[in-house]
């Protein structure tokens, strides 16, 4: 049987309204408390933390990094086998691998363990002979525009392409991704991977909100995640990447709302067209509003797009919070199902670990109140971190008194995005 549906089989219950009201009130109070009473001189400008030399030696030793790379490479290989030779059904593990493990899983992975994805990126292993796995120099201010475009295309594929969960279409998408990265590397240099591979760019960006960083000499630092993010010299066009991720996650919530389903389940407009226009307009609206709210930060030697880059790290916690709030339960449920299916990638009846008969553990999903509170906490904590990082960065170029009033539009936008994100989940 071919369920023609995407990979998400379960939606979370709508958030209870009193919880949203309480969270919205907390968001308002905390945001303006930060604006009025938090520190008045930048605090997180310098990258400093506890140096971990022994951990660094262990993590960087071939005894650790090679098996890790090979292990992750082997998982990708299983997924690739399922992609090429597996059956065209939604229980083919490659769908769960791409849309759950890879797309959703990379956020918690990066938040907890830092820049793991870059060190285990299968494309780097593939391009090893031309230096794909060599430790890269710091990114500097190179452009993330290719990755932002690739992420927009991936979001479009996931959210607006009705046949996304069919094998021929996924094969074409995977081939396009592979060609985009490999041809780019061959035409430029291996730095292209960091700028253009959507998954690595996304993971590396989120990893800046992890407690892990590196000192200039390469030693691992255990660092306050806010300092880690705020002391980051972001690559150019990171704000576009942030707006794409924020907009597409919001759009995913929109398509789950009853009024959207009512409008389009029976309409004459094809779901591909309505999805494409919907996604593009939400992303464009987020980007437009973001730029609009940055206008007060413009100075003679600081054009708008430069301001957008400078303040873009503040978008990262919003993205991470939204992402976790929307997809954590999906990662829990479908992640387990994917693990079970990965044991038999070609649907030949393999049962290597005796898990073929196992069902997913549902314990967490029997606690709807806990889920709702956790979702709201993800969004609120993401918002607070975003406001703190934005505040800290805003203080750098401006006098404290100027910085306060000029931040107001941006903070209001963040409040609006956060509360509308929660209202969309209220449904």
């Amino acid at each position, binding site marked *: *049987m*071919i*369920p*023609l*549906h995407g990979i998400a*089989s*379960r*939606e*979370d*219950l*709508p958030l209870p309204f009193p919880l949203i009201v309480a969270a919205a009130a907390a968001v308002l109070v905390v945001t303006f408390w930060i604006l009025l009473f938090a520190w008045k001189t930048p605090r997180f400008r310098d990258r400093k933390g506890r140096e971990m030399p022994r951990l660094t030696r262990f993590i960087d030793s071939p005894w650790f990094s090679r098996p890790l790379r090979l292990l992750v490479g082997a998982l990708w290989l299983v997924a690739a086998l399922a992609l090429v030779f597996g059956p065209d059904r939604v229980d083919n593990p490659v769908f769960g691998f791409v849309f759950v493990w890879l797309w959703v899983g990379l956020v918690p992975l990066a938040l907890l363990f830092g820049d793991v994805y870059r060190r285990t990126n299968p494309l780097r292993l593939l391009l090893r002979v031309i230096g794909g796995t060599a430790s890269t120099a710091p990114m500097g201010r190179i452009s993330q525009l290719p990755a932002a475009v690739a992420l927009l295309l991936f979001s479009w594929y996931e959210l607006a392409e009705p046949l996304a969960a069919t094998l021929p279409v996924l094969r074409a998408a995977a081939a396009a991704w592979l060609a985009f990265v490999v041809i780019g590397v061959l035409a430029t240099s291996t730095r292209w991977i960091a700028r253009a591979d959507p998954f690595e760019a996304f993971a590396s960006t989120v990893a800046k909100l992890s407690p892990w960083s590196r000192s200039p000499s390469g030693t691992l630092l255990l660092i306050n995640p806010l300092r880690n993010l705020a002391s980051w010299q972001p690559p150019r066009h990171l704000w576009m990447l942030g707006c794409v991720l924020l907009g597409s996650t919001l759009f995913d919530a929109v398509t789950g709302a*009853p009024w959207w*389903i*009512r409008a389009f*389940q*029976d309409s004459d407009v094809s779901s591909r067209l309505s999805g494409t226009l919907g996604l593009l307009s939400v992303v464009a609206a987020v980007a437009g509003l973001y730029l609009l709210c940055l206008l007060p930060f413009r100075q003679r030697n600081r054009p708008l797009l430069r301001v957008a880059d400078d303040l873009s790290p503040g978008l990262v916690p919003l993205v991470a919070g939204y992402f976790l709030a929307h997809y954590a*339960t999906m990662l829990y*449920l479908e992640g387990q199902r994917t693990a079970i299916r990965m044991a038999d990638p070609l649907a030949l009846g393999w049962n290597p670990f005796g898990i073929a008969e196992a069902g997913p553990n*549902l314990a967490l*999903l*029997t*606690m*709807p*109140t*806990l*889920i709702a*509170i*956790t979702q709201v906490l993800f969004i609120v904590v993401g918002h607070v971190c975003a406001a703190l990082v934005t505040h800290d960065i805003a203080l750098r170029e401006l006098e404290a008194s100027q910085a306060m009033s000029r931040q107001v539009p941006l903070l209001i936008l963040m409040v609006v995005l956060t509360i509308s994100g929660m209202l969309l989940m209220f449904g």
Partner: protein
Amino acid sequence: MTGLRRVLLAGILAIAVAGCSSPTQNETTTIRLEITDTAPSEPREEKVPLGNLVRLEVSSEVDGVLHVHGFEEEKPLVAGETSFLTFAAGMSGAFEVETHEPDAIWMKLIVS
């Protein structure tokens, strides 16, 4: 810092306790569903208490397959006959009940 940690820990514990409302009852919720050859403009919503058994009684005008998302339950439908599908609503959430050919979402099960 330890004070902050203690507050955080207490908060997490409070949430965990609040979240542990135990699903105990195992009663059966029976839901009747009629499948026609035209999709409804809006799927109807049915509430099911968490932990109950759900018994779907599906009378269909068309051949096809009924699919309950999330629980991954499937039932072949034969035109003119009534089919029965029973499963335990062991997780909370909203789940679509749909058919393939005609592709349509007929119902949303709200398990809470």
